[in-house]
């Protein structure tokens, strides 16, 4: 079969070859960022501490470490970690191309803007996938060494998938802010503003106005509830940051319900009395599917905004 030719008579290079070049370009950028390497090191230090500390305490108090066969399967990256991984990998991706002027030689290569955008996205996905996979494998090995044989290891990829999806909600928001503003500082501040704003606002709203279901449709941790299991009560975050844990919870306790409580503060004999009352209950299946659907919608909408903004951005400098 002969290769197709362009209008200038040259052999038409395959779409994939050009696309993969963009992926390489972006991956090298990401893995050589000092802040990314720093974050990975910090993540591994925290993971290590989670099993080194019990060993140290056990040695100092002469108490044996309790076996925890669910340690690895219930491991999840906390919301702040998910946000930071998204921020560090995506903050420069589009905006700094414009700021540094590297977009000019890139756009004069035979790669379309859509191809560049998709390539950057795939590179970001691959970086997150590889980093999280290594982290999860590390946790499984560490958990097995410290807490004994681990159960339900076949569910670990489910948790990994959930964490990646949670991260991509923030990545999409950061990319959209970066493509619209063409400024790393603006996109970082927007992302931090949204994250910190929701991080502070959601618990406050939950206390004063009750755990409104609306909170579960915002990016981030969402409303917090309690699920009773055979292993005891488990705290469940119903937002997009908790997808990894929720998928595991659903796999392990598919028929369990999550109770969301309202906190009441009353004065009794001049003393504040804090009581909790059940606001509503939801099956874990509903919470999980809703958080996945919400994350998918946010990811698609913000990536679409980022793509459109990148595609039509003017190169003035």
């Amino acid at each position, binding site marked *: 079969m002969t290769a197709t030719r362009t209008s*200038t008579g040259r052999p038409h290079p395959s779409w994939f070859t050009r696309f993969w070049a963009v992926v390489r370009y972006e991956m090298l950028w990401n893995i050589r960022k000092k802040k990314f390497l720093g974050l990975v090191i910090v993540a591994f230090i925290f993971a290590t501490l989670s099993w080194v500390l019990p060993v140290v305490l056990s040695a100092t108090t002469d108490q044996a470490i309790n076996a925890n066969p669910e340690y690895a399967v219930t491991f999840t990256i906390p919301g702040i970690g998910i946000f930071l991984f998204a921020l560090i990998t995506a903050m420069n991706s589009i905006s700094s191309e414009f700021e540094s002027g590297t977009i*000019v030689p890139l756009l004069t290569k035979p790669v379309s*803007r859509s191809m560049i955008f998709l390539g950057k996205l795939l590179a970001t996905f691959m970086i997150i996938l590889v980093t999280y996979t290594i982290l999860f494998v590390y946790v499984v090995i560490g958990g097995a060494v410290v807490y004994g044989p681990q159960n339900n290891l076949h569910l670990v990829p489910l948790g990994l998938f959930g964490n990646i999806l949670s991260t991509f909600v923030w990545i999409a928001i950061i990319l959209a802010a970066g493509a619209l503003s063409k400024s790393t500082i603006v996109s970082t501040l927007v992302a931090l503003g949204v994250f910190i704003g929701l991080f502070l606002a959601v618990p406050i709203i939950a206390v004063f106005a009750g755990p409104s279901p609306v909170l579960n449709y915002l990016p981030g941790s969402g409303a917090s509830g309690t699920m009773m299991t055979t292993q005891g009560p488990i705290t469940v975050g119903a937002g997009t940051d908790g997808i990894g844990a929720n998928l595991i919870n659903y796999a392990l306790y598919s028929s369990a319900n999550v109770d969301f409580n309202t906190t009441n503060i009353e004065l009794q004999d001049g003393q504040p009395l804090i009581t909790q009352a059940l606001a509503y209950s939801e099956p874990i299946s509903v919470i999980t599917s809703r958080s996945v659907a919400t994350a998918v919608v946010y990811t698609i909408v913000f990536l679409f905004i980022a793509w459109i903004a990148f595609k039509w951005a003017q190169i003035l400098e």
Partner: protein
Amino acid sequence: MDLAIETNGLTKKYGSLTAVNKLDLKVQRNTIHGFLGPNGAGKTTTMKILVGLLKPNEGTVKVLGQELHGSKNGGVLKWFYEQADSRLSIGYMPELPKFPKHLKGAELLDIYGQMYGMTQQQRKEQIPKLVELVGLKGRENDLIGKYSKGMQQRIGIAQTLLNNPELVILDEPSLGLDPVGMVEVREVVKEIAKEGRTVLVSSHLLFEVEQICTHVTIINRGTALVSDTLQNVSGLLSGPAMLHVEVAKISNTIVNAVKKLPCVTSVVQTGDTLRIQMETHEDMRAQVSQEITRSGGIIVAMSQKTSNLEDVFIQLVSKDQGGKPQ
């Protein structure tokens, strides 16, 4: 005429500012075409339109026979796809190019080569040659972040040649280079053209353009003032050339012999010096010196006063801006 670049009525506006105004630019294939103009004349904007970085408001652009920007068939997606394909045969170096600092020089070329669809083998063969051509041998495995401005210019030139382009567009390739670097860049540009490529080069350095270009377009306020061969443009505003010849053993025989040359309109003798007014602005020194020698004279010195590109540039631009020609 086989054209590598052809624009008709090309117009680009930024709000109320018209950067390029109904520009008709024609660049013949296999020429080195100088693109001159004062700051803000619209050179960089035109070049960005030619490589698809900017979309014009009006006019048509044909690059290597392929029409850009004007396609209204196939919708937005087709427009973008075609734009990307048209760049397969073009090498472009922007003014003061910026490349990702985290990449090594050779890595950058390798990735860009892959974007052009070059195989690994082709890249392995091509990249060392280019690195050597632009004088970066031994530094190709350093991070671009550690490159000097001059080295970034050099890697910028190398990346334009990766895909053996038919058309090379260089925007101020000597900017930021030291004198040695400027000479080297001139040599590289000449080398590029020797291989049968078309080169469009913008420069502020008129003597540089005179040394390397075969054709010149001068633009001001987005409009072409003149576009022709370098020789014709250089002679455009000059009157006939004047030769000053210092002759040992001068005699009437020599003066009369020179006067009889068809290209000579008058000869004035002052001591041992002849001031010869020519009919043309072309270089006739060889014919004149041959005639003097044949008549028994010995030429001690000879110079020709003609207007150069700088004179033409200043006169044209001043006139266009409403000033008096200098």
